[in-house]
């Protein structure tokens, strides 16, 4: 099995929790100001249009209020955070050239092996910027682009200008979108030309190593007419006693008849605020699939959104959130049916344990004129003990009569009676939890590539052990 998500079988501690010595060639002073935004743009030698966009975003950020709903963000202090850290001077296409300390981390996480085995391409990011980008020749020849977003600004300015924080996630969307627009760095850029199907997944792996830092990668995926691609994103950070901030934006454009699957397993350590905005615009008969696993972090707010703008467009959202001790996750899905005969299916599962708290927050909107549309939302919560908590906030706005809508919500609590029943048949308490958990998660595990499903189970088990201890 490939260690895609970063397990080292020889070590009791998960690899991603082990920090490495800090490395940087440039870093901004702590905190955020107009000067720091300008410094980031200057260090990147950006064109004027991007620098101006950053400054405009910063102005919006100053005006916007931090959300008062969702998770408690009162302990998040922007003055303590280093917003930009450049790990090295250049980028590589060959692992042998990558500096030994960075390569060591990625080797331990098993990333280069995974790339060899079953990926069409890989982008590696360390702190604020990408250090590695490689797309296999076969796809490059067909015009596919897969690189880090900073490189894309320089090499493909027209594409970036058209799609970057314009009509999908505008810079004025909300406070964290505006902050992101001001200080964004790194992320991946995917462009798939019309009619091209990328048969193997593209993967990006983002590593945040320094304590009290911020990571603001921007991912832009454009699938032209009839194109298809599966993009996988993984994120980790080592364990520190101080807080870090991760605030990414993902924008996906699914053109007519195209399909995009976006899979992400986020496994931040428990000192990370994880506040992301992910959105897709789906045109006629296009398909978007979001598969997400949210583990780790201290606070998470994440509601991937599908805007179904073309007739027959469809969205599928599969989400797992695990909240262990000290964690609070507010996650869900937003779907807007803006055209007739559009379909959406949301399956959201949360597991809370050790006093953790999970909330489902979802929006389902069916616009006037979106007749013949179908939507099915299912959110299930599993509470492994009596100290943990789960809430559901489903919002629905339906402006059309000729539609079929289903909403199901269940809350299951693992009871002593269930555990005793299973143990009376010979299962240990741990095996009993495992059985209940894998049954609960099965509908989503089935959608993940096998290695991912196995590792996800292992990670959840680790969370459980951590919460009990």
């Amino acid at each position, binding site marked *: 099995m490939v260690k895609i998500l970063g397990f080292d079988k020889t070590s009791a501690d998960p690899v991603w929790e082990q920090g490495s010595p800090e490395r940087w060639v440039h870093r901004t002073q702590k905190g955020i100001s107009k000067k720091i935004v300008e410094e980031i743009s200057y260090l990147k030698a950006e064109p004027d249009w991007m620098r101006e966009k950053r400054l405009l975003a910063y102005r919006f950020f100053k005006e916007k209020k931090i959300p008062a709903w969702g998770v408690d963000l009162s302990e998040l202090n922007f003055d303590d955070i280093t917003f930009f850290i450049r790990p090295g001077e250049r980028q590589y296409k060959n692992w042998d050239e990558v500096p030994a300390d960075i390569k060591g981390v990625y080797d331990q996480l098993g990333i280069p092996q995974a790339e060899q085995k079953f990926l069409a391409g890989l982008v590696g990011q360390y702190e604020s910027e990408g250090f590695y980008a490689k797309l296999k020749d076969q796809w490059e020849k067909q015009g596919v682009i897969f690189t880090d977003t900073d490189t894309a600004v320089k090499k493909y300015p027209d594409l970036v200008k058209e799609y970057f924080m314009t009509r999908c996630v505008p810079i004025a969307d909300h406070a964290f979108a505006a902050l992101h627009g001001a200080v964004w760095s790194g992320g991946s850029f995917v462009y798939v030309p019309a009619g091209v199907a990328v048969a193997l997944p593209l993967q990006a792996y983002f590593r945040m190593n320094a304590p009290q830092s911020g990571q603001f990668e921007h991912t832009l995926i454009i699938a032209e007419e009839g194109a298809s691609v599966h993009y996988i994103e993984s994120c980790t950070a080592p364990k520190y006693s101080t807080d870090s901030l991760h605030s990414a934006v993902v924008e996906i454009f699914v053109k007519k008849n195209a399909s995009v699957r976006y899979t992400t397993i986020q496994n931040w350590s428990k000192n990370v605020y994880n506040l992301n905005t992910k959105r897709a615009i789906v045109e006629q008969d296009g398909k978007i699939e979001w598969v997400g696993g949210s583990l780790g972090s201290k606070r998470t707010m994440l509601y991937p959104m599908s805007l179904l703008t073309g007739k027959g467009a469809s969205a599928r959202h599969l989400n797992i959130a695990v909240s262990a001790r000290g964690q609070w996750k507010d996650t869900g899905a937003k779907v807007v049916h803006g055209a007739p005969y559009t379909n959406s299916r949301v399956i959201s599962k949360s597991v809370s344990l050790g006093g953790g708290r999970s909330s489902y927050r979802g929006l389902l909107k069916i616009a006037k004129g979106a007749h013949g549309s179908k939507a099915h939302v299912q959110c299930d919560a*599993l509470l492994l003990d009596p100290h943990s908590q789960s809430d559901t906030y489903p919002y629905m706005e339906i402006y059309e009569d000729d539609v079929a809508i289903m909403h199901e919500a*269940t809350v*299951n609590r693992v*009871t*002593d*009676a*269930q555990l*005793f*029943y*299973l*143990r*009376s*048949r*010979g*299962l*240990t*308490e741990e*095996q009993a939890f495992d*059985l*209940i958990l*894998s*049954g*609960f998660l*099965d509908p989503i595990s089935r959608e993940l590539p096998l290695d991912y499903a196995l590792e996800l189970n292992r990670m959840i088990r680790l969370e459980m052990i951590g919460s009990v201890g």
Partner: protein
Amino acid sequence: MIPIMPHMLEVQHFSAHIDEKKILQDVSLAVAPGEVHFLMGPNGSGKTTLASALMGNPVVVPTGGTIIFNGEDITTALPEERAKKGLYLGFQYPVEVQGVGFVPFLRAALSARGMALPSEQDFRAELVTAGVELGVASALIDRNLNEGFSGGEKKRSELLQLSVIQPRLAVLDEFDSGLDIDGLRSAARALKKYVTPDTALLLITHYGRMAEYLPPDRVHIMQAGTIVKSGGTEIIEAVERGGFDGFLSLS
């Protein structure tokens, strides 16, 4: 010289609490291999608590006495350890376990007990065959564990598990409630087949009617947390005539 038959289960002066409340008081009971025992008594007399204590339910806290199983003291053993030693509890109200399929559950249980497993397909086929005899619909096998099962289906599922797990001693709590007359007959047939010179059965029941189908070797009457009377089938006849109240006032 007649060899002394060692007991499979020996409960000696066993007492226990639930939530600090005394429920079982000085219970003694012995079951030998090959035997069928009935445990009877009025509602709330402690029968279910005793069954639960035998299986090691953590909510039942032992406060005195011992439970010996096959010569081993299991008074403080974990439920799964008791299960692996060959003890089985058929629950009065089997709990629903959402999302856990009957087949994956049973496979996990058997593999936890160190039993070799056939392929999932073969295993399912074996279950269907075993289920026919017990009147278990094959659709039930594909459902989640006890989820939405009717009372009768739950009891049949407990019997099906028994037949697959093959324990040394089965304690069945009120398993005749929820079964119709046909269900009762087929259950008794299956249990007769289950009891061999190596296995034993402790059956908790409200009513004596089960004795018509499955004659017991010993009958025990429980009242107020202790066993007040042990004997043969004549006890059942007395209970059937005068009810527990009449029987207990006589003795």
